[in-house]
């Protein structure tokens, strides 16, 4: 019960941990390369041309 109460109070900590895990999976799946490729070329859609 006490653990559960403490867990709820520290929900932000669980959120940060989840974020780190997701980032780790993203690295493993090569998703950062996808982001980098998109971000380093002019995004024609973003500027309203593509």
């Amino acid at each position: 019960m006490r653990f559960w109460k403490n867990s709820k109070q520290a929900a932000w900590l669980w959120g940060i941990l989840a974020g780190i895990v997701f980032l780790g999976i993203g690295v493993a799946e090569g998703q950062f390369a996808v982001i980098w490729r998109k971000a380093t070329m002019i995004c024609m859609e973003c500027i309203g041309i593509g």
Partner: protein
Amino acid sequence: MRRLRLIVQIVFTVLTNGYAYGFASGRIYQGKLKYACVPGLNCYSCPGAAASCPMGALQALLNQKGFHIPFAALGFFFLFGSLLGRFVCGWLCPFGLVQDLLHRIPVFRKRKNLPLHRILKYGKYVVLFGLVGVGSLFLFGGFAKAPAFCKYLCPSGTLFGAIPLLGKNEALRGQIGWLFLWKLGILLFIVILSVKVYRPFCQYLCPLGAIYGWFNRFSLVRIQWEEETCISCGACEKACPVGLSLQEISRSPECIRCGRCVENCPKKCLRFIVGN
């Protein structure tokens, strides 16, 4: 507090868009910092952008062939959201700064919200699920998927990306068509509306705000209300630029943690806290 927030907004905008050579040459930064995302809505096609836009990153991952859970983008959302919630919107978003500055222009009688606010505030969730989610996965692009939010709505891309790039790049200027005019129209509409209404894009359309709003109730940085010392004078509610009630301040997904309530509380029973 108000001045401090303005300084933080300006410094963060300059830091995250500080690639001056890009503005001078009409090119964009292509270094390794673009592997990472900034917390706010900051178009990665802005010539000065030093890192990636989280909403652009999410759509880039959804636009891949087949379906992949966009873990990298989710990681940034959970990290920034759990730490800051919509503090990001109030203090760190460049497009939020633009709207704040526009709202300071002393013309029109100012409004906190649009009429039908109770319904319109859900617009950002429609944009998130419709344009960013379903739009990026299935619609608009036919067989070649497209980042539908960036393509059809995002005014940050037009302001920070398109205008500086088109100003310096004649080849791009030659390709302007109806899509650019549509996006320019949206930008102009939001610019004019921002002079009258406080942050209309953040309140009604921003999918990033919809995401960070979910984290508001448990993020590390929050606004705490000490009920025992409160005299219910209503100063905080009067000062709140988005028209929240005392009970809603900080916990509501609409609270951008600008700190006006904290600044205006005569009994200092509202304050920023970090942690529990």
